[in-house]
Every structure is written in C-alpha cells, then in structure tokens.
C-alpha cells in the first residue's frame, strides 16, 4: 500500500513539473521528426567525376549513370585543380591503354560511389561491344546459311522486380535506428529524471524524514519503479504512435511487446539512475554521468553495426542494457518477432534489473540501519 502512496506522490510531483514532462514527451518526438527528415530526404550520394581523355562512349555511359555528373577536362592539371577545390570528387584519366582514377577521398561514400560507377560503366561498355560483335557474327552467319536471323531474343534485357519483406523502396537508415532510438530516449530520460528526483530527496532531507517512518526500504524503491514504469509506458506509446501515425513507419510486430521491452529497459534505467545518484552530491554531478553512462551506450546499440567492430570491442557491448533492448525492439518492429523468441534479451535485462534493485534496497541502509 505504501508503495502505491509513494508512486502516487512521485507522479503528482512530476505532473506539476510541466517542463520536465514536456522534455520527456515533446523532445523525443521533435528529435525523431528531425532525424526522419535528415535521413529520408536523400539516401543516395551524388558524385561529380572529372574525365580527361576518356573515350566519348564511355564518358556518355558514365554520365548516364544515376547520381553521377561528368565534367570533361582537357588537361590533367585542370582536373587536379578542380579536385583540390572540391568541385569534383574523382578524376578518370585514360592513358597508355589504362584508366587512372584519382579520388578526393574526403568522403568514403563518395569514393565508393565513384569506383562503382566507373566499374559499371566499363563493364556495360564491354558487354555492349560483345553484343554488337555477336549481332555482326549472327548476321554474317545468316548471310552464309540464307536463314532469317532469329530475333534478338538473347539480347533482350531481363526485368528485375523488387519485393521488400519490410517497408518499401524508401526504407532506409532511419527505419533501422528508430527502434533503437525509442529505447535510447526511454533510457536517457528515465535515468536522468529519476536520478535527479532521488538526489533531491536525499539533499532536501525528505529521504531521511521518509526513513524515520516505518516504511520498508523496498517499498520506497518499488514506489519509484511503479511510477517511472507508468511514465515509460506512456512515453513509449507516444513515441511509437507518433512514428506510426505521422511518419507512417511500419511496425510488423506487436506494439504491446515493444512497450514491454521498453518498460523493462525503463526499470533498468531507473535502477541505474537511483544507484548512480547516490554517488552524486548535486544535480550538476548527476549530469556528469551522461557522458559516462548514457553516451557510450549509443555506440553499442547497433546504430553502428556491431559486426564491424573488433571482437574485444564487441565484448564491451554485453554490459550495455540498451544493446539488448535495441536488438529486441528491432526484431519486433522490423521482423515481427514474437516475444517468446526474445527471451535471451529479456532475461539479460531482468538480470540487470534485479541486481541493481537489490543494490538500491541495500544501499538505503546507509540512511537507516533497519
């Protein structure tokens, strides 16, 4: 019963703090809208290539490639100058029967795009050459055997039809990071606000006063969990609904499962927040935990692919709670995975939760011996 009274009090306090509430609900939505604009507007790289003494046909082909613009230079030095001043991203030069490519290489994506574009153009050129030769041969053969040449069946282009298991052709990086971002927001705000709240209880003396009543230590911790759990559920729902209704993002799996995963994460964040607040003596010191506890988690959530990291770096990710919620949320949102298949992630989150909660309940002994 006292747990409910504490939860009610924490929620009443929060409801009177309009700015904090706005921060919890409006800030994530704003950031998500902003990110969707940034990532959805253009997912392709436009490359400008300079050509020097390249055969006209190849130059034409290169120019016909999507997202590639070609500019012709008469001399190598003129092209190099353009490269230096950032007017073009790569130079293609034909000399001594070979192609020399020079890349500005200030943006790896540009370099890759230029490499690909040139390779494709060259391959297409070769294929067309072969096709022409084939046609000539066939014609010559027909003339010899006096037969009608077969219609160019073999040279007809094969049509490619794309199907997407998730989303559509516009699905991009934003959709990949969205499930992770939801978890990040839940973690960040619950961690910070609950940590601050408990810090304030400690510095204002209300915690001491509270512990001078017969309330049990776990009732205080559970009261906090209950109230912030409610808050995290609302926050997740708001973010998910905004992304579905306004951004039209497809959620394949169950929204309830998504909320449950984020609730678990929020409780872990709450426990971490309360735990770390005991090491802070002021709100500013609490803020200092952000670069240590919150920011590193972003790197290990899957926003940057984990497989691309060195093995020993990957090991660090195992102690990051957002990694597990990120993996689970992604599976639910993108592949529609059922909760029953996500028990390893849920168990790890539960272990984080149980350990930090026990530490918190025992930690309160510092203020009352029983």
């Amino acid at each position: 019963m006292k747990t409910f009274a504490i939860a009610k009090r924490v929620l009443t306090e929060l409801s009177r703090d309009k700015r904090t509430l706005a921060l919890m609900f409006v800030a994530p939505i704003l950031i998500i809208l902003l990110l969707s604009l940034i990532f959805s507007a253009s997912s392709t790289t436009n490359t400008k290539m300079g050509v020097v003494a390249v055969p006209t046909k190849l130059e034409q082909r290169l120019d016909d490639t999507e997202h590639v613009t070609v500019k012709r230079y008469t001399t190598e030095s003129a092209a190099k100058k353009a490269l230096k001043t950032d007017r073009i991203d790569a130079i293609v030069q034909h000399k001594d029967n070979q192609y020399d490519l020079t890349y500005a290489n200030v943006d790896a994506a540009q370099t890759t795009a230029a490499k690909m574009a040139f390779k494709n153009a060259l391959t297409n050129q070769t294929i067309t050459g072969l096709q022409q030769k084939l046609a000539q041969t066939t014609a010559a053969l027909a003339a010899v055997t006096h037969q009608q040449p077969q219609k160019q069946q073999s040279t007809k282009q094969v049509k490619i039809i794309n199907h997407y298991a998730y989303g559509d052709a516009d699905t991009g990086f934003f959709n990949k990071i969205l499930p992770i971002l939801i978890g990040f927001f839940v973690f960040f705000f619950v961690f910070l606000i609950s940590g601050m709240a408990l810090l304030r209880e400690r510095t204002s003396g209300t915690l001491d006063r509270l512990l001078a009543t017969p309330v049990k230590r776990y009732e205080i911790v559970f009261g906090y969990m209950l109230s912030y759990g409610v808050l995290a559920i609302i926050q997740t729902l708001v973010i998910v609904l905004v992304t579905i209704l306004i951004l039209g993002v497809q959620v394949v799996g169950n929204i309830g499962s998504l909320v449950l995963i984020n609730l678990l994460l929020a409780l872990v964040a709450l426990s971490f927040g309360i735990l770390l607040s005991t090491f802070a003596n002021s709100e500013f010191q609490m803020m200092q935990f952000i670069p240590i506890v919150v920011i590193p988690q972003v790197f290990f959530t899957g926003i940057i692919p984990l497989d691309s990291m060195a093995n020993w770096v990957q090991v660090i990710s195992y102690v990051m709670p957002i990694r597990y919620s990120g993996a689970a949320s992604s599976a639910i949102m993108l592949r529609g995975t059922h909760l029953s298949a996500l028990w390893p992630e849920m168990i790890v989150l539960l272990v984080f939760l149980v350990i930090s909660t026990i530490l918190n309940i025992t930690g309160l002994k510092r203020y009352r011996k029983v």
Partner: protein
Amino acid sequence: MAETMISMHHLAKRFGKQVVLSDINFDVQKGEIVGLMGPSGAGKSTVIKAILGMIAVDRGKATVFDTQMPNRELLARIGYMAQTDALYDTLTARENLVFYGKMKGLDKTVLTHDVEHVAMVVDLLSDLDKRVINFSGGMQRRLSLAIALLGTSDLLILDEPTVGIDPALRQKIWRELHQIRDAGRSILITTHVMDEAELVDQVALLMAGKVMAFNPPEILKAQYQVDSIESVFLKAEGVQL
C-alpha cells in the same frame, strides 16, 4: 512508577576522528517533556538520530519503549520532526500531510481527522491547499511540525521545532505540547530558545558530547545559583557573568 519511554546507556559516536558523543546517559519518562539543550555542534541532532536508528552508534545502546533501536516497527509510534523541513515543494500542505501520514501507517479516517486538527494547531488551516513552494520559512517549519503531530504517537521527537515561528503561535504550540504531555505522552525536544527551556519538565544540558546536567529547570537554576536557564547555559559554558 513512571514508565521509561527512551533510555540511553553510554552512547558514544565518532565521525572519523571527531568525537561527537562521548558518553550519553539519560531517560525520558512517560508523560514528560525533556528539553535537550546545548550549543550548536554539541551533538543534539546526533543523539536524536541515534535514538531513531538513523545512525549506528559506536558504543552503548538506545532503547525506545524498552526495545533496542534501530527498530523499524517502533517508528510508527514516534512522531519525528527533523531539523531540515523535509517537505515536497511541489505538493500542497495537505498532500504532504496525507503522504507522511500514510507512510506512518495511519488509516484513512484517522488521517482525515488528524490533518484538520494538526493544521489548526500550527495555524495552517486556510493554507492547506496551497503548494509548499509558496510558503514562508516559518510556514514550512509549522507544516513540518504538523507532520510530526499526526497520529497519536506515544513519543514525539522534535528537533528545533519553533525556529522561525512567531511568539504568539509559539505559545499556542507549547499549549498543545503540554496537552500532549498531560495526556500521558512524552516529548523529547531540542531548542535554542532559552525561555522555552523554562517550559519543559527536565533539561538535559549537552556539552562536548556529554550530558553535563539533567534536572528540572528550577533545580538547575538553584544548582548554578542563577535566575534563568540562559544564565545556567552561560555558566556551564564557562562564560563570566
């Protein structure tokens, strides 16, 4: 004979190298107001925290209702007012009272009645539904006292309850405290206000971690051959009168 409500035996406590309490012995009987007096830094709040079990003592023991502290359940029978106001700023006075009442384990009907009563004692009835953040320092102190008065506690432990409270209201509060005493409940109170020391039944004079004297005010005055507790205090501190 009177029942003993609080009993302290050879309490000792040090923080690091600094000895705060060296040897504290005194009792609080049923139906008695004991004033714990002493200069700031004498260890008054430490004594109170030891009684409540908020700090662990190094030596000796404190018992409340014949049970050794710390003991969580006993806290339900103690009304405590801390030196800091310890209020939730964004809540109203009533919400603060109800919350702490619930934490104390009071049931709803008792609580509704008590909230009105204690608010009346500290003259906050008309401000019950205002938020604490808009309260003056004195009003916050009064609300803090009101919280301690909630429920019919057998024992009240009040740490500097009348700081920043106007004389007229202070008188009213003391009348209430005397009524509580006359109803057979006990009060341990710390104060800096010397004329308040005349209003208690026993004065425990705390200096340098020791109880220098423990007597009713009249006897104390006779002992030190002075006519006010203030002079007792000065004399005990060694100030030339």
